[in-house]
């Protein structure tokens, strides 16, 4: 029932907005409102093209596994199937460099084998996870390898294999790598390549099964215990590091609301632990046409220079963009053969602010999304809002609302701006429209104080009259009783 209503609403919205040329409405664009219902929304990003290897002039890509945008603006693609790293110019029109042969310290040259991760630091070092050769290599832009990290020879490292997938490095040169079959978090190496331990491990959610297993194990013999399955946290599937050094991780198989996206500080603490947002699609999401139920399985995350977070979901083929605080901005993509849709296996996401790049290992393309006018308005407003410039944010939020009446954050933005201006009534109204009792409370507090100070004389007079009447009444009642009794 609600699905039909939503579809009808979407149709009306599309019909309405298509008449305005400046705002592009992608079909099926949606967002979540305050009550967690999927509502039709304006698109913040629009797929402009899907680039394949021939267009870049480097031959077809084969299972591109990772994409990274360096500080210089150039893009680096880990072309897994062709055993090479491709550097693409900032306009994303041609491949400016192809790295497939590297030279180590001794002058010997070697090839990559199935690279699955690429990271380029600000000082121009490439960190490549050479997955097929079980090692991570650090190289300069000329292909001279300065460091090779292989399987750690440490008691802490228990796995037989060493298969690095995605790799990042912080500004001190410490290397973080996601390893296949390791659930204890990302492997952490010092700048000399020494294995230091694990970082950003997930935790096991105490479900009924985990608890019952724990109790069973208390009574089991060693032999029985060894036959039982162990409860291990879900492994990290993707991560990124922001300018301030916080590491963002995503876990594909995690339950909604539990460690799906984490912002990990250097001490290993999750700063998104108490957040309200459910990252990815909410559990109840179901396509009303096909009846297909989608389950979110986040595979990669990217943080751009403004701190906005993009999550790639391989379960639904969607990209979710969140602001710095973790509030949903836009949802784009989907699973389809058209432009802007993905196959079963999108692999990585990279965001540069105005553009979002997604590699697809079955289509062998890089899909480019560009910010729409609506997206720009919202991003501007959101940035001003998060910087505390509520009044400056008022105009863009109003503009955003004009484009999309379902955009909850705009109501709250306007509410905050009006509150700052002292228009408590208006702030209350918009907080109610945005469905936030928290914002309503702040506005109401101001409204009440204003009302009391304005009507203080009337209120106090009212109370005084009430008290006097009370006294008179009591006095007379006593007299009356005495009269009756007497």
């Amino acid at each position: 029932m609600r699905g039909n209503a939503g579809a009808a609403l979407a149709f009306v919205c599309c019909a309405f907005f298509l008449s305005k040329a400046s705002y592009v409405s992608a079909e099926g664009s949606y967002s979540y409102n305050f009550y967690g219902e999927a509502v039709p929304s304006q698109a913040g990003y629009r797929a402009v093209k899907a680039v394949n290897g021939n267009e870049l002039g480097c031959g077809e890509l084969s299972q591109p596994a990772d994409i990274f945008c360096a500080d210089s603006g150039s893009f680096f693609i880990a072309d897994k199937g062709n055993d090479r790293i491709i550097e693409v110019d900032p306009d994303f029109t041609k491949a400016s460099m192809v790295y497939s042969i590297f030279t180590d310290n001794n002058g010997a040259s070697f090839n990559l084998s199935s690279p699955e991760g690429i990271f380029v630091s600000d000082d121009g070092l490439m960190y490549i996870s050479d997955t097929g050769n079980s090692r991570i290599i650090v190289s300069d832009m000329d292909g001279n390898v300065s460091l090779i990290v292989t399987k750690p020879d440490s008691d802490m490292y228990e796995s037989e294999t060493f298969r690095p997938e995605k790799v990042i490095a912080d500004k001190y040169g410490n290397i973080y790598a996601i390893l296949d079959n390791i659930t204890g978090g990302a492997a952490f190496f010092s700048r000399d390549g020494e294995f230091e331990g694990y970082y950003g491990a997930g935790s096991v959610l105490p479900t009924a099964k985990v608890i019952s297993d724990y109790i069973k194990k208390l009574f089991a013999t060693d032999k029985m215990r060894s036959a039982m399955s162990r409860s291990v946290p879900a492994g990290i599937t993707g991560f990124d590091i922001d300018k301030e050094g916080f590491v963002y991780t995503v876990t594909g198989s995690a339950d909604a609301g539990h460690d799906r996206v984490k912002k990990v500080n250097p001490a290993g603490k999750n700063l998104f632990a108490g957040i309200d947002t459910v990252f990815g699609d909410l559990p109840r999401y179901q396509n009303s046409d096909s009846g297909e139920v989608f389950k979110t399985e986040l595979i990669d995350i990217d943080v751009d220079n403004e701190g906005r977070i993009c999550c790639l979901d391989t379960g639904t083929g969607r990209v979710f963009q969140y602001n710095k605080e973790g509030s949903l901005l836009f949802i784009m993509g989907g699973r389809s053969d058209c432009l802007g849709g993905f196959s079963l296996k999108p692999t990585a996401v990279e965001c540069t602010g105005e553009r979002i790049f997604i590699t697809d290992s079955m289509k062998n393309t890089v899909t480019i999304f560009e910010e729409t006018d609506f997206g720009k308005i919202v991003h501007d407003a959101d940035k001003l809002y998060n910087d505390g410039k509520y009044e400056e944010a008022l105009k863009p939020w109003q503009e955003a609302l004009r484009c999309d009446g379902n955009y909850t954050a705009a109501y709250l933005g306007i509410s905050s701006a009006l509150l700052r201006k002292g228009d408590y009534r208006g702030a209350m109204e918009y907080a109610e429209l945005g469905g936030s009792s928290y914002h309503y409370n702040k506005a109401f507090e101001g409204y009440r104080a204003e009302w009391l100070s304005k009507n203080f004389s009337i209120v106090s007079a009212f109370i005084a009259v009430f008290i006097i009447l009370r006294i008179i009444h009591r006095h007379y009642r006593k007299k009356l009783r005495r009269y009756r009794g007497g």
Partner: protein
Amino acid sequence: MIELTEKQWVLHTVFHPFDGFEDLRFKKAGSILISNIVIALWFAGTILRENFYGKQFVITSVEDFSILSFIIRTVFLFLAWTVSNRAVCTFFDGEGTIRRIYIYSAYALIPYTVSLYVQVMLSHILIRDEGIFITLTGVIGILWSAMLIFTGIKAAHQLSVSKTVLSILFTIAGMIIIILILVLAAALIQQIYVFAATIIAEIEYRLKY
């Protein structure tokens, strides 16, 4: 002994939690009409608290409103309580009639009902920081009503304290059984209905072609 009108009896029982109901029983007072009014107010108060609460505390979606759930949570629950209590208390040699249980329980709910309205009123005046006063009102209302229910049941059946506690626990168990049986019955009736509807549809089909 005191002589009171029915309206005065209401206040007397509410403000004399220990002997109010004993007096009420002794005087054979208590009105079904007032009990019905109290239950109606309780029902309305619950709806008010869920849907007309101060927006600084919670903003509810009107779309999700279902009056059935409110009927079940108030009127139905109360009837189940009355029936279950009457059924259970025969085990404990309780001498309360169903009328008496109904009236005493309804009177006992007055503080809680009042607290609902006070809460709704306060929620429109206070802000979140002062929300503790609303919680306090609710706690007082519940505790007061719980005490009145206890003394009410005790007086209605002329039970000892320990037997009253036991009978209340049994009553709650009885309520659960009543609800379970009703749910089962509803499911069964639905299946019978579906069965009958299928047969009728089949017969119609055969007759037509």
